[in-house]
């Protein structure tokens, strides 16, 4: 197995999960990740990429941010309210994805990215490398992001918060 292939297999699922939270559409995410790995391939031909993981995630986040779906800010939480009205099972995966994306879209772009990385279990060191922020400020920013997200989800009346 060559370098490219093992990198692909190692990181594709995690990249997929991160991009999915930000874009909420399978086709868009597949396109974005294709671009990412094309860029990774051509970059690795030119010079050695020292930290493939950080590189891949940084590029993925940037490409997600370039995408139109990401920039659409949902000011109204209509989908959330709809879920609430159904009294019960948001088991349809698509609704969940849309719901998460809409809640996240209330945050500023950088905070949104941080929240997604955090929820995927990245360490502070990795997050600071990927996001290009100081290690010492990760905790502070995270604390703020968690509180904001909590308030957003609470005000939207999502059912998990009622229990």
């Amino acid at each position: 197995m060559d370098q490219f292939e093992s990198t692909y297999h190692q990181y594709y699922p995690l990249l997929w999960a991160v991009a999915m939270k930000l874009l909420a559409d399978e086709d868009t995410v597949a396109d974005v990740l294709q671009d990412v790995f094309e860029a990774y391939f051509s970059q690795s031909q030119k010079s050695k990429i020292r930290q493939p993981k950080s590189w891949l995630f940084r590029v993925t986040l940037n490409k997600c941010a370039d995408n139109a779906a990401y920039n659409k800010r949902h000011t109204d939480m209509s989908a959330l309210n709809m879920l609430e009205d159904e009294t019960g099972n948001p088991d349809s995966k698509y609704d969940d994805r849309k719901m998460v994306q809409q809640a996240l879209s209330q945050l500023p772009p950088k905070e949104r990215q941080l929240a997604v990385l955090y929820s995927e279990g990245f360490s502070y060191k990795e997050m600071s490398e990927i996001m290009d922020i100081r290690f010492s400020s990760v905790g502070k920013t995270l604390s703020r992001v968690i509180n904001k997200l909590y308030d957003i989800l609470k005000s939207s009346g999502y059912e998990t918060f009622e229990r």
Partner: protein
Amino acid sequence: MKHLRDSEIQAFIDGELSPRQVNRVERHLQQCPACTARVEEQRAKIDKVFSVLNLVNNPEIKHPHLPLHHTKASVETLSVLSPNRKKWFGNIASVAAVAILVLSLTFIIRQNTLKEEMLGKQIFVRYEMEDEFDANRPITEQDYVFRVYQQ
């Protein structure tokens, strides 16, 4: 007594403090119920937010087609990554092409035969109302039958 900062609480929960910092935080928590409550509150918030964010987990992963151009290496990579898709794609495309060709040919032939059948024959289609025709009601609400006459 100096209370814990939000960032310290967050990092403490996430296990991102150095052993010495952890020591300091734990000592403080033993004497400070207010900060203990803050830690618990933050922990609960993290759990709630996680429970929603991770609704998106276990997504079915869709692999993209990797580019066929560029280099030999990427072509090899493609065939390793998705051997079946590449092989099947060609077959499906050719089957689809043949199917479309056959369908359009039958359609054209049928059209022509129909035209020939119709030539030289006159067909009348007329609808005939039932006995009780009420001129005050719309025609769609009346009973009638279609009759086809051929000459």
